[in-house]
């Protein structure tokens, strides 16, 4: 038999039929929805007089526009309130499971999916959100879709897709102390640019990937879209099983043992052909920071901003208030954001807390520490992380997408610098005029206690 890639194994087993010219009707096992990209899809179904085809395969949460304080009270912003209300109503009418603001399972869609056991290896997963690639950490084909496609999935549990090309990114070696999965993916994106993987689906492999835990793998897969890839995935291994074994909804399944056996095939066969292959060495990666307005504009935190003549590049640096050749170490910071579907998990809170423990928040820093879900928040409290944060002058907010896209009131003011653990540093992403520097939770913590851009290794070695 011809050796197959992991991607092909999952894709091919989900093709309902192929359409002349190369597109496939792809069956979707899991569909996540949220308040911002779904209302028009439900409206479309209503206009067609069609009901949701497989309501139990869709799971809904409110996360994008919600406040991260006083969640027990009604949402003040009228339009956001209406959007969330609409989602609840649409779910109720269609029989879709919905985790609203005061539900103990509420949280960011890409955080709750895995932690509640809705994301399982071998699945095809879509959501009207480009960071759906997060779920690829579990050996799934997971990618973001538009609202028209949300409507397709609601109507038929399928979408029409042409098969992307396949790329394998192999990262061997061992990450240095103080360097995290976030630095790894920011480094890769800086090497291949924000459009470098457009048209591809990426499989991450190699010893450095294998040694990551599931939270770290999710961070890597999450940012696949930031290099243009439709998604990214990682083969299933013991780490995957151990994570799933800790989730009661999964390990209590009567067929859990047979699923484990089935999932063993979820890796690329030896000799499988990829359209493109790239290799990196994990040992050479340093803590990273971005200096521009797309995630490809990143460098080691102790490096200097590169030179380029491109008009877009110059416009970008102007926006940031930086110039080529400049070093960012020691540059003042105004805000720190820890959270998002990239770095809002318990491991991220632990990393942040480990560095700020015994230190104090720098004067002048406003910090937004936002857990990715109610469960993450609860676990942080159980582990005493909230106390550590509190003693260092930080406060744990309530879960949501928050300042990652600033649809709610968690906005960074114009001209202010924010070291952010989120995924995008686009102009105005965190609020009109805001200046975002993407980094790991450790680098964010280092900025939070020093008030300036700092190499976290300098503090870890103290």
């Amino acid at each position, binding site marked *: 038999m011809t050796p197959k890639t992991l991607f092909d194994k999952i894709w091919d087993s989900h093709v309902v039929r192929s359409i002349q010219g190369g597109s496939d009707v792809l*069956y979707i*096992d899991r569909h996540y929805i949220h308040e911002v990209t779904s209302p028009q899809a439900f409206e479309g179904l209503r*206009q067609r007089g069609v009901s949701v085809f497989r309501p139990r395969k869709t799971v809904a949460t409110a996360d994008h526009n919600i406040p991260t304080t006083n969640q027990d009270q009604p949402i003040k912003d009228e339009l956001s309130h209406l959007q969330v209300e609409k989602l609840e109503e649409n779910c109720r009418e269609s029989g879709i499971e919905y985790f609203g603001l005061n539900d103990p399972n509420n949280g960011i869609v890409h955080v709750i999916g895995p932690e509640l056991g809705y994301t399982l290896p071998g699945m095809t997963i879509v959501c009207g959100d480009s960071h759906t690639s997060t779920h690829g950490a579990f050996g799934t084909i997971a990618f973001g*879709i*538009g609202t028209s496609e949300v409507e397709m999935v609601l*109507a038929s549990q399928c979408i*029409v897709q042409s098969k992307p090309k396949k790329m394998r990114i192999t990262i061997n070696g061992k990450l240095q102390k103080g360097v995290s999965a976030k630095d790894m993916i920011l480094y890769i994106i800086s090497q291949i640019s924000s459009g470098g993987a457009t048209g591809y689906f990426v499989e991450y492999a190699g010893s450095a990937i294998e040694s990551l835990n599931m939270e770290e793998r999710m961070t890597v897969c999450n940012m696949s879209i930031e290099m243009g890839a439709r998604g990214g995935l990682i083969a299933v291994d013991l780490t995957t099983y151990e994570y799933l074994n800790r989730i009661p909804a999964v390990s209590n399944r009567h067929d859990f043992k047979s699923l484990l056996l089935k999932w063993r095939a979820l890796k690329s066969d030896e000799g499988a052909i990829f359209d493109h292959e790239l290799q990196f060495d994990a040992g050479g990666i340093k803590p990273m920071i971005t200096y521009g307005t797309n995630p490809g504009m990143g460098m080691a935190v102790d490096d200097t901003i590169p030179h380029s003549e491109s008009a877009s590049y110059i416009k970008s640096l102007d926006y940031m208030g930086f110039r080529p050749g400049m070093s960012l170490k020691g540059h003042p910071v105004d805000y720190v954001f820890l959270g998002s579907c990239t770095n809002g998990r318990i491991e991220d809170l632990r990393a942040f807390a480990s560095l700020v423990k015994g230190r104090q928040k720098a004067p002048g820093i406003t910090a937004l520490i936002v857990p990715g879900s109610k469960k993450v928040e609860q676990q942080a409290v159980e582990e005493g992380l909230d106390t550590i944060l509190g003693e260092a002058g930080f406060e744990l907010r309530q879960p949501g997408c928050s300042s990652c896209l600033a*649809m709610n009131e968690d906005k960074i003011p114009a001209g202010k610098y924010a070291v952010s653990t989120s995924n995008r540093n*686009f102009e105005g992403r965190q609020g009109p005029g805001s200046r975002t520097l993407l980094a790991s939770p450790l680098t964010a913590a280092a900025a939070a206690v020093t008030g300036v851009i700092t190499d976290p290794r300098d503090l870890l070695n103290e």
Partner: protein
Amino acid sequence: MQKKKFNILETTCVPLPLENVDTDQIIPARFLNATSREGFSENLFRDWRYNDSGSANEGFVLNDPRYKGEVLVAGRNFGCGSSREHAVWAVSDYGFRAVVSSFFADIFRSNALNNGLLPVIVPEDYLNNLLRIVTDDPGTRVRIDLEKQLFSVLPDGEPVKFDIDPYRKECIMKGLDDVDYLLSIRDIIKAFELRNALKYENRDNGHHPEGW
């Protein structure tokens, strides 16, 4: 649902010679809290188009009365970032029927095709030249022939061929819709579900089998 059909378009262009224009620029997140598809054109390129005070930024091309037309010509990697279809709705709602670039972000491209907004992919050199021509002479007219998959600068520019998936081409030319197609094959989808259910005897989570 029947959508607007696309075949031949002859029009002037609006040049946007910037690379990596992301969907947060096309429509900032703070304008996404609507529950309908209409009205997004007002906030197309909001933060480039308007000053902080709300007045028009005269330096931005959409506020330059010389540039008008139904085709937006933009630098490479147009539409990267968020999957928000609102970006496509905003571009369409403003009156554009096609966007020309050297490559598009994948999700933006499929969203565009699903809304009858034609993404035209031309070689990088051709694009840079086109941006120059259109910027220098706002009266430049271009022609898009979808049937033949040809893009040209009128009156006598050498046509350049562009790629489009044959299924998408047919949909956009006839104004057809994927949802209608998928609804028409629901029985085939049910048969697929049944085949997999028998294969894996896996029925406990939802009506039908899941997973690989």
